[in-house]
């Protein structure tokens, strides 16, 4: 079983209009910039995929990555916990103009909804957001004297994630705090596409070190020396 894909273009070529896409990373840490940029390039060249929904903790910074996707006009909806961060003008402008939809989800609930989808759990109860406007319309229940809100799993058609080491069967490791949402999203999407900084044959990653087992990964593309989103934002890079 060889899951490697030779190019970024090929790796993202099947993502259709209207797709729900999870994108890993937290800020610039663990963000699959090259996969995102390949998707933007395809949209600019072909007009597709358009009207996609993006699931990420944030809503992009600067003029690269998810911010560039939004600026390019290919995103119809964001599902995230913290869209209002520094250099988030791309999202802010569209949101305030009513040109992009937002589903705001508490960060821990976002993570657990994604995990639940990957684990086959359609709903769960969490204390987070109980009694707040983000729980409006959601069923609640009391357990051992405390109130909880029912939340649903969050699935995706595709996940774009970033690993450090990958092998041909899709096993992944992550670099430093770049793990964040990546392993969860790998589990929750119909098709998970991973860019890895180092690609090896099966057996090159010690099984004890594997963080995401290959069963959760459908495609692996090698991007040696990947760009770091935070560095691109700080240098004002534009994609």
């Amino acid at each position: 079983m060889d899951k490697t894909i030779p190019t970024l273009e090929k790796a993202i070529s099947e993502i259709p209009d209207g797709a729900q896409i999870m994108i890993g990373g937290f800020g610039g840490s663990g963000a699959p910039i090259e996969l995102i940029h390949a998707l933007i390039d395809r949209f600019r060249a072909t007009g597709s995929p358009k009207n996609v929904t993006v699931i990420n903790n944030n809503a992009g910074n600067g003029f690269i990555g998810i911010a560039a996707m939004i600026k390019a006009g290919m995103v119809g909806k964001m599902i995230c916990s913290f869209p209002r961060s520094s250099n988030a003008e791309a999202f802010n402008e569209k949101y305030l103009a009513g040109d992009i939809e937002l589903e705001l989800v508490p960060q821990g609930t976002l993570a657990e909804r994604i995990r639940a989808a990957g684990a086959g759990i359609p709903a769960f109860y969490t204390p987070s957001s109980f009694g707040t406007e983000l729980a409006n319309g959601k069923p609640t229940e009391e357990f051992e004297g405390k109130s909880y809100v029912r939340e649903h799993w969050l699935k995706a058609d595709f996940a774009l994630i970033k690993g450090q080491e990958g092998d041909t069967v899709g096993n992944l490791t992550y670099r430093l705090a770049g793990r964040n949402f990546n392993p969860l999203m790998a589990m929750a999407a119909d098709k998970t596409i991973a860019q890895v900084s180092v690609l090896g044959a099966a057996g090159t990653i010690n099984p004890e070190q594997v963080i995401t087992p290959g069963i959760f990964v459908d495609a692996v593309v090698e991007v040696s020396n990947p760009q770091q989103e935070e560095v691109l934002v700080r240098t004002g890079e534009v994609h």
Partner: protein
Amino acid sequence: MTDFNISDVALSNAQIAWRAAQDIEDGSYVNLGIGFPEMIAKFQPDGRDVTYHTENGVLGFGKAPLEGEEDWDLINAGKKAITLNPGASYFHHADSFAMVRGGHLDLAVLGAYQIAQNGDLANWRIGSKGVPAVGGAMDLVHGAKRVAVVTDHVTKDGKPKLVESCTFPLTGVGCVTRVYTSLAVIDIAGSKFVLKEKLPAVTLTQLQSVTGATLHIDGEVADLTVPEDL
């Protein structure tokens, strides 16, 4: 509306952070909210071994790296570059929030727009305008053994931040256990504000006049004293 000038006596943010830091116990696991609460780590008393958690998936982080030595894959929830202390670990977001909601943290400290006498907290948005953003605040108020707030006692235009009930959108219901303000240390118990410490320069009447709900006294009210040169 008050017979004293708060700015003459109020503690600085650093002094409030210093006071909050004195209550961090040896051996505890602590999450400090982005912004003002982060300052508390600077004043951690010597000899106490404290492990700091950050929501994006790191336990045991230490000081900021020197400028130019940042690795932007190693950041905290405020997206600032960090370094690790010996014994640190990485984990994914679901495990990170399991540590929060699952009752594994000893202390979470947050900022506040308003705190109600029953422990309700409003700290994520002021009205319905602009771009809403919640991050991990609604999770962090649940699960930690103690949920504390550091804040000025009043808003910039002098309105009480400690109130009978919050008028801003809530972050969590009945979640705050202690409030460190620029004038006092106040516990929340039995849906009441219970005054534990106040600045010696402020009378009880003056403190009550800038507090939006009744301050209850249960036992001794100690002097709130902090180093002056912070």
